[in-house]
């Protein structure tokens, strides 16, 4: 029974991936890709990884899909009359190379599945030492305590990607503002949904210590609220980066490195955290930074300004 469900999900993933690659229009491809991401979330849930399911649904499918759609809209706005898609390349080697790559992955994976587990491997060490951290979600434990250098640099990569995207867009005129949300229902709907996204993201953030959730999932949900405000015209892209934008943007990196380095003064190793409060503080700061970075990436601008309806 379980295997039947897994097979269906697997079949769906393969079919959706194929559709995304070879579907008729680019828009259709994006839709297929988003559905692929949501199906990935199902697959993660089936593999017993609810943290990944949350992250995939919010970040993998939601944010990536939104970014792709807004990029496609910019392409169409630049040259509305051009044929959207260039022809595919014809390559005799494509199929053999793809088959070889697939078999390579299969051999590695099947080899890894059949190997006997080392008794002292890292995953076991995580579970053995988790109680000391005060966290009961082992994934948050790995991300914030055991391998937190990875997480620090991950936030740095996100910031670097945003700054690089900004540099690419720098001398470009602002994309025309999306239509203002003048429909009577938009305001009422925003008044419900936006507070709800804040509530859900704070819940995900706090839940991260003992059940699935964490700063990244929370940041992505919060970003969804921001994207909604942009789509409804309540927030408009603006040029220039005021301190009120720049500070939250680097807050996660700043709080994380300051706490991590300050602990070194007391003789602790790099990025050793003083306690559970530090984990919460860092996660909250990271959530704000991640959400703002994702929203600004969506807006394609260095700042935002409020627009009263």
């Amino acid at each position: 029974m379980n295997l039947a469900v897994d097979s269906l999900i697997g079949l769906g993933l393969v079919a959706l991936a194929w559709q995304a690659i070879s579907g008729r229009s680019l828009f259709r491809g994006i839709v297929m890709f988003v559905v692929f991401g949501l199906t990935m979330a199902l697959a993660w849930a089936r593999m017993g990884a609810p943290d990944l399911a949350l992250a995939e649904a919010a970040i993998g499918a939601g944010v990536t899909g939104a970014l792709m759609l807004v990029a496609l809209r910019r392409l169409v706005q630049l040259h509305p009359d051009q044929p959207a898609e260039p022809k595919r390349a014809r390559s005799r080697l494509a199929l053999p190379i793809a088959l070889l790559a697939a078999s390579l992955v299969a051999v590695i994976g099947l080899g890894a599945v059949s190997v006997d587990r080392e008794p002292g491997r890292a995953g076991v060490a995580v579970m053995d030492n988790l109680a000391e951290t005060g966290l009961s979600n082992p994934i948050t434990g790995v991300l914030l305590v055991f391998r937190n250098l990875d997480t620090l640099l991950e936030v740095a990569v996100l910031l670097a990607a945003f700054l690089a995207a900004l540099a690419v867009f720098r001398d470009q005129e602002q994309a025309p503002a999306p239509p203002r949300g003048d429909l009577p229902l938009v305001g009422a709907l925003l008044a419900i949904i936006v507070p709800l996204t804040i509530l859900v993201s704070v819940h995900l953030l706090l839940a991260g210590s003992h059940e699935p959730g964490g700063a990244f999932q929370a940041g992505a949900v919060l970003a969804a609220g921001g994207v909604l405000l942009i789509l409804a015209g309540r927030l408009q892209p603006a040029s220039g980066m005021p301190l009120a934008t720049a500070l939250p943007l680097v807050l996660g990196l700043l709080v994380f490195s300051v706490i991590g380095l300050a602990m070194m003064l007391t003789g602790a190793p790099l990025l050793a955290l003083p306690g559970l409060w530090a984990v919460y503080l860092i996660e909250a700061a990271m959530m704000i930074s991640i959400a703002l970075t994702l929203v600004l990436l969506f807006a394609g601008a260095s700042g935002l300004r409020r627009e009263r309806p």
Partner: protein
Amino acid sequence: MSSAVLFVIVAALLFGIGVYGLIIAGHLLRKLFAINIMGNAIFILMVAASGPLDGKPDALPQALVLTGIVIAVSATAFALALMVRLYQLTGQASLHNNEGGDD
């Protein structure tokens, strides 16, 4: 056949589709789909092949994959910005010098 083996096979198929798409895709957006699909295939591989730990899934590969998902979206966002800029400058969003040409 266990679920782990099944998901390893799915990962292999997805990776193959990703590589194929990356080679044949004309539009850069399609190449981005392909790269993301390849990435997802490797994520599945890491979690499925790591196997359970006392009945529960191993947390370490999951944490690594979580990091990977965020890095993937960062790289995709930057790539999309580059694509829009390329389109703005050259009027096409592909890597071919002339439309439909091989390589």
